[in-house]
């Protein structure tokens, strides 16, 4: 474009001396004559189009890459981090429950533990690769390195447990210590961080394009003024070239505004009906898992020290349902989202779980240890294990549904911006071409 305008500026400049060219150029822009004014107008308009085209294309590129980042990087990493955190919490709770049920742990608990570890390991591998050399990447790698240490301790515990040796319990406590003191906090930090990244990418993709809008107004008014001036100074009502440029400009503006607002709407809906409820649900789910582990650990520990029970009660306060609690926040946030129904029913299940937990505690406190254990880990309807299982299934289902909703909406948002960048560039070139053609036709009248 710049090369083109240079040709227009010095159409007859050959291999002549530099001074001559300069004289010639200054002659061309001698104020007062209409051709000089026309040339000046052309230069001004072309400069305006270059700035506008570049700014519009850059805006679109920034939004498109932010949307692609949300869909392709941030959201998958956030889901990975959430799954890792969840799997590890579940492994901790499951192993505690399995230990509570005696030397030969129930097969389904063993499978669940193995699935948790396999899922966490797989997600960690994928996430480590996706996160590359970033800070998150090294934290993923550190987590991945601790996981085999944890599983090693658990397997040593199992082997000793099967022999009926209390040494097994000692190894299990060490494993649980590693999990609660090192692995889970790292997983939680990572999830918080990835969620922050997702929110930032989301904000970038849905931000209002101020610069592009201001430039659109300036370019549009410049073009309008040019046509009014041309009509007055040449006595011709319409300049087809400038009209073409105006139409191209209008098309660009409409396309840009429509695509950007559609994409923003889709991405906001992805956030409001997807990632925001997922975050609230995931927080509730992980708190519930910790409560479940606390319930088992209180029974395993029997140290007369009620810190696990205290932890359970404070988690119960945080989980709710009730004003300002995690479950209520999750149910409200998920209202209208695909997971809304499941989230609402999870809040009801939690209340039932607490009631059974209370019975577990009163049984244990009155010396009926075996009955308390049975009620805590049993999977018969009405057992604490059954209530927790349902709560966990409902929250997990709500999370999966909302994650799917997020993906669909975010992908739609990304596709709204498809072809827009190329379109903006092509249309800007068309504006420049139309403008050049139109003004050259008027210039020809004077030669």
């Amino acid at each position, binding site marked *: 474009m710049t090369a083109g305008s240079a040709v227009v500026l010095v159409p007859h400049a050959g291999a002549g001396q530099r001074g001559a060219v300069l004289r010639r150029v200054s002659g061309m822009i001698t104020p007062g004559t209409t051709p000089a004014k026309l040339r000046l107008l052309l230069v001004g308009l072309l400069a305006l189009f270059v700035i506008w085209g570049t700014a519009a294309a850059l805006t679109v590129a920034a939004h498109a890459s932010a949307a692609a980042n949300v869909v392709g990087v941030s959201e998958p990493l956030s889901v990975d981090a959430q799954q890792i955190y969840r799997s590890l919490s579940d492994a901790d709770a499951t192993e505690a429950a399995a230990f509570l049920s005696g030397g030969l742990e129930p097969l389904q608990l063993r499978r669940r533990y193995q699935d948790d570890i396999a899922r966490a390991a797989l997600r960690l591998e994928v996430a480590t690769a996706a996160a590359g050399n970033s800070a998150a990447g090294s934290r993923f790698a550190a987590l991945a390195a601790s996981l085999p240490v944890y599983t090693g301790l658990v397997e040593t515990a199992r082997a000793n447990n099967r022999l009926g040796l*209390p040494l097994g319990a*000692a190894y299990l406590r*060490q494993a649980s*210590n590693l999990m609660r003191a090192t692995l889970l906090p790292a997983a939680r930090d990572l999830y918080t961080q990835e969620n922050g990244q997702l929110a930032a990418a989301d904000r970038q993709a849905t931000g209002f394009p101020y610069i592009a809008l201001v430039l659109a107004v300036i370019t549009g008014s410049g073009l309008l003024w040019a046509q009014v001036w041309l009509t007055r100074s040449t006595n011709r009502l319409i300049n087809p070239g400038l009209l073409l440029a105006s139409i191209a400009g209008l098309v660009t503006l409409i396309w840009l505004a429509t695509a950007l607002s559609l994409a923003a709407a889709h991405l906001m809906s992805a956030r409001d009906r997807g990632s925001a409820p997922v975050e609230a649900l995931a927080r509730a789910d992980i708190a519930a898992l910790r409560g479940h582990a606390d319930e088992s650990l209180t029974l395993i520990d029997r140290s*007369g020290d009620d810190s696990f029970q205290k932890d359970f009660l404070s988690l119960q306060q945080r989980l709710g349902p009730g004003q300002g609690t995690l479950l209520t926040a999750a149910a409200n946030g998920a209202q209208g989202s695909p997971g809304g129904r499941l989230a609402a029913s999870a809040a009801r299940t939690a209340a039932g779980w607490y009631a059974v937990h209370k019975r577990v505690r009163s049984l244990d406190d009155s010396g009926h*240890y*075996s009955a308390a254990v049975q009620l805590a880990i049993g999977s018969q309807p009405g057992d604490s294990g059954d209530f927790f299982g349902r709560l966990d299934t409902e929250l997990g289902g709500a999370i999966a549904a909302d994650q799917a909703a997020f993906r669909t909406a975010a992908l739609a948002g990304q596709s709204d911006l498809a072809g827009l960048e190329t379109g903006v560039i092509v249309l800007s070139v068309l504006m420049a071409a139309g403008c050049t053609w139109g003004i050259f036709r008027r210039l020809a009248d004077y030669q």
Partner: protein
Amino acid sequence: MTARWRRCRLLISAVGGAAALFCGPVGAVTPPSVPAASNPALARLTAQFKLASHTAKCDPTASSLRPSGPPAVTPGSYMARIKKRGYLIAGVDQTSYHFGYLNPLNGQLEGFDIDMVRAVAAAIFGNPKNRIRFVAISNGQRMWAVRSREVDIVAHTDTINCYRLTRVAFSTVYLVAAQRVLVPLSSSAKSLNNLWGQKVCATAGSTSLSFLADYFGLPAEVSPLVGAPQSIDCLVLLQEGKVAAISTDDTILAALKAQDPETKIIGPPLNSQPYGLAISLKHPDFVRFVNAVLAKMRADGQWAASYRHWIGTRVPAPPPAHYRD
């Protein structure tokens, strides 16, 4: 005990059981390379420590109260209160193989100490089934559990000594152990003397740890050295190569050895550890009652049967009961 102990307790709770393996800087005593005598500050601390732990002069094996006949729940007694409550609260170890441990195969607490508690509950309720509320405690928690009266009785391989007698009451001696040393089979050490400069693990709050501190001239309570919360945690440390040896009562060492055939017990008996059941000083009637139960067990062969089942087939005569009154 309180600050460090609290921290341990917090960790115990944070870990799901009691893996407060890391609540001390290192779960082991490292004997210094310099003898304590050559370090005036250390010698002074050692002297202070010895003063604190050995002021009281007494006979630990003859310091309990005489029973007033066969075990009977007399009206208005502490036993009557326990009976009214419906269950006996007992502080026990759930990690000491053969003494007090949670059998992972059936989820029940079992062992020699547990048998003692069951006998006491049987004497109160007739049938001890569902009449005992077990509270699993660590070595470091034993004195506190009794003094705070959160438990009625502690059966936890608890050595009677003069210092502890000023804090809690003990039953008559129900077992006598002696401190020895456990090392891996591959170790070349022949006794504690060969372990200078190496890490030796003992249970925090145990007489074994105090003995080691004395032996190596290190004040256990004033130095930053702490043992593991449970003797079983010492075995984990030994298996992971983090300590060179474990030193505690031979009875407990035998139980550790039974869980790891790659270990051996070395050296001569280093001292004598008379075990008693700990009860609050505020319940002398209950002490007499428990002594009556023990006297009955010694006489009717219940003690010998339990010994044969948990400790060894060569059953010695039960430790004789001596009373101070």
